[in-house]
């Protein structure tokens, strides 16, 4: 680590109207190193990355690549310099082949007489793509359409694309947010490969356990300033969180004992062929029922079926002991079921509209008389919930787009609470939300449970599932493989049930021996 950093940022500042996003930040990454860049949302991580990627221009400061000053003008220029960025959202086109995506904007061409026609040399492109895909350990035919690939395979294409520009520095912005545990593992193997090849990798994530697994060094930003650097081997969670939030958090996850009542929602034999098979469970008043499993285990699909958003092939749903027919989300809403979807920006909110608008959409009838909306009444009711959930918004008229992720999530929650739900389904309620807001959402969940609402929470974050749930349903490839009580659940057991069915028995046998 004595050599000079491959990328060094010195005293970079950036101001947006009203916000100082970066204040005199230093940052450096060495060859063959994985640096985890941490910070709450709004700490300035993405601003810094966007400056490096050429998407933003810095106000002041200097960037050095291999000791020479660079000024990335735009994304294309930054790539030319050797800085590749893998964004949270994939930059792929589904109707083109993997090879075309990998070489997007730098397609190999025929030379010689054909040169002026800019004809793409498809054979060379696919050969080179195959080579790059091999380097990221992908088993993908370069001629296959990206639309046919799984999410994990798409990510491999995305990384191959970064390698295609011969990058020295690869920035990964929450690359694991769309991946299951398995895919995350293979991504980490790829990252270790790249590191061994001498690439420098900047890794942004919200999942602290990943930081410990993959990074060599941790740089923490808070409020646009660098507040700490830690060697991963010497760091611990409390330390990092303290740096990120600037205060001590006793427990990230707050869970209080809430008296649990009778079953509110019960489903039996819920089936959608090829997706979800014979799912049976119930959730009780005041209970938080966690759903664990890998991506693609069928958790979201199960919830969409219960909510009437997808048709079911088979199965029954009971609410308060009565069988109910739910064929559309409207039916579900009428029966008092609320769904906070995983993708809140697309499925949960109308981003361009106001907080008030978003909150009263599902319950419009209640505020209308003969089709005429009584705005004052609606606003008064909505304000109650905004206050109760502590949504930080300057006004009810604020455009939702301008709120932070955590506050957007609260608006979605508030929207459903206005309907006095009996059952609230939360799909990845804290994904992409910073630590402080996360704790607040967790506290809200407990408060709602206290009010007697039955809560179903899908989460891919094991600590969250373990800390928040009264019982945990584990799914694997469309089946329920286990329903665990709070006391008997451990990370290992859940993971075992989530991956395979043979393993848990082995563990059980082992435990039997011990006992």
């Amino acid at each position, binding site marked *: 680590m004595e050599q000079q950093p491959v990328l060094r940022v010195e005293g970079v500042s950036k101001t947006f109207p009203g916000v100082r996003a970066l204040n005199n930040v230093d940052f450096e990454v060495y060859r063959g190193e994985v640096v985890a860049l941490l910070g709450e949302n709004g700490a300035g991580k993405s601003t810094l990355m966007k400056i490096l990627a050429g998407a933003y221009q810095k106000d002041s400061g200097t960037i050095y690549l291999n000791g020479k000053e660079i000024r990335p003008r735009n994304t294309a220029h930054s790539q030319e310099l050797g800085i590749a960025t893998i964004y949270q959202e994939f*930059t792929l086109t589904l109707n*083109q082949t993997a090879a075309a995506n990998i070489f997007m904007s730098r397609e190999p061409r025929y030379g010689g007489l054909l040169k002026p026609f800019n*004809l793409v040399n498809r054979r060379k492109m696919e050969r080179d793509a195959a080579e790059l895909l091999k380097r990221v350990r992908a088993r993908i035919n370069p001629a296959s359409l990206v639309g046919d690939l799984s999410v994990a395979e798409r990510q491999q294409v995305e990384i191959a694309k970064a390698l295609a520009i011969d990058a020295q520095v690869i920035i990964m912005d929450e690359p694991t947010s769309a991946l299951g545990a398995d895919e995350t593992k293979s991504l980490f193997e790829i990252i270790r490969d790249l590191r061994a090849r001498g690439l420098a990798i900047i890794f942004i994530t919200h999942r602290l356990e990943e930081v410990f697994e993959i990074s060599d060094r941790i740089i923490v930003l808070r409020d646009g300033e660098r507040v700490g650097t830690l060697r991963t081997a010497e760091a611990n969670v409390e330390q990092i969180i303290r740096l990120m939030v600037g205060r001590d958090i006793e427990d990230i996850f707050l869970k209080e004992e809430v008296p649990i009542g009778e079953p509110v929602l019960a489903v039996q034999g819920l089936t959608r062929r090829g997706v979800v098979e014979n799912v049976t469970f119930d959730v009780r008043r005041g209970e938080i029922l966690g759903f664990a499993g890998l991506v693609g285990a069928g958790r979201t699909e199960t919830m969409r079926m219960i909510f009437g958003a997808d048709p079911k092939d088979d199965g029954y749903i009971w609410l308060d002991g009565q069988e109910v027919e739910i064929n559309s989300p409207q039916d579900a809403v009428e029966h008092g079921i609320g769904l906070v979807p995983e993708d809140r920006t697309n499925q949960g909110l109308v981003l361009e509209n106001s907080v008030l608008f978003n909150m009263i959409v599902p319950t419009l009838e209640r505020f209308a008389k003969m089709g005429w909306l009584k705005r004052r009444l609606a606003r008064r009711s909505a304000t109650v919930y905004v206050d109760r959930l502590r949504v930080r918004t300057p006004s009810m008229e604020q455009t939702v787009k301008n709120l932070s992720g955590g506050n957007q999530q609260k608006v979605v929650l508030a929207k459903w609470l206005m309907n006095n739900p009996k059952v609230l389904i939360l799909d990845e309620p804290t994904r992409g939300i910073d630590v402080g807001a996360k704790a607040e959402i967790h506290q809200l969940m407990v408060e709602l449970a206290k009010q007697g609402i039955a809560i179903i929470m899908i989460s891919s974050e094991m600590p969250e599932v373990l800390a928040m749930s009264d019982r945990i349903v584990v799914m694997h490839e469309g089946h329920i493989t286990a329903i665990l009580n709070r006391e008997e659940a451990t990370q290992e057991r859940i993971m075992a049930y989530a991956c395979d069915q043979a393993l848990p028995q082995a563990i059980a046998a082992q435990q039997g021996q011990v006992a």
Partner: protein
Amino acid sequence: MSDVAEPLTRREAFGKASRAWWRGIASGQELGVFIVLVAMVLFLSWKTDTFATQQNIRNIWLSFSWIAIAAFGQTFVIITGGIDLSTGSTMALAGLAAAYLISGNIEGQPSPWMVEKIVGGRTQQMGPDEYVPIALLAGPLMGLLIGTINGVLVAWANLPAFIATLGMMSIARGVCYGWSGGWPFQKLNNGFLEVGQSDVTLLGLDVPLPFIIMIIIAVLMSIFLMQTVWGYRIYALGGNEQAAQLSGINTKRIKLIAFMASGLMAGIGGTLMTARLGVAAPTAAQGYELDAIAAVFIGGTSVSGGKGTIIGTLIGAAIMQVLRSGLNLLGYDPYWQPAAIGLTIILAIMFDRLRVRFQNRPIRSVFNAEGLRSRLGR
């Protein structure tokens, strides 16, 4: 899956490739629409005596050529995720631009450059011969100019394509009326008319020249779209604009190229149309933008962009023309034709939706052992 590092076995590679191949065929809506076209032709040949005559086929070829050409350009724009509503007006204005100098009658008066020429033993008034090459250039160039303006408005002024070209549709049409005073440019030079009206004998068949031009353009446009760097980028832009931008593609330039292509093609189409009709009317080609757009969609281009082919558009345009001709020959009142065309568009898109849904589920699991196993219940 710890074995990710292993290379593909030959069997797996073959399986993946053959699946890609199979899906490539099945996902080409071209095949579907082509079957529809063949079925229509067979049905009409069987049901009527008049359809399969050389005269009728020649008429069909002639009359769909310029719509098809305009639709090729439209295909570019729609693949990028835009739309060009100015196609019809552009065709009309390009027709006027082509006809102006070779016209013997402007605004109902003999034009200053009118000459008298003996054609087929009869003395006729027309524009002079030496302007014919200029005319053949002026039409396409006028189209290119309009397309360029559209492209600049969309890419640099950030107007939605729908709005920019809606405005341009009216502007171009207004220029048509203003320039011509509402009168058609008449008495066009006979050399110019030959481009639209003469035949070339190929394999014993009289093939109209516009049809041959259309086929040549189709081939060139296909190569441009499927084989060149620009074509790749047009697909990339339509498939995921943000991805294209972040990958370093100059998306503004690609949008401009697409609209320029659309304008140029409408210009060529309008010129051929004028040469065929023998007169450039300011009212010409009204509603043709919708025909061109319909041909693109029937041909399988995705409404949301990123997907589509020239050959599909060509078949789409042919289907519309065969449908028109067929309804005529079967003795239906021509007033009903628009209804039939509209129905075809709706059915074509519905078919496309069904095909996509069908494709995404069963085929996949039948051809993939894992899917089969899960289906049989492990």
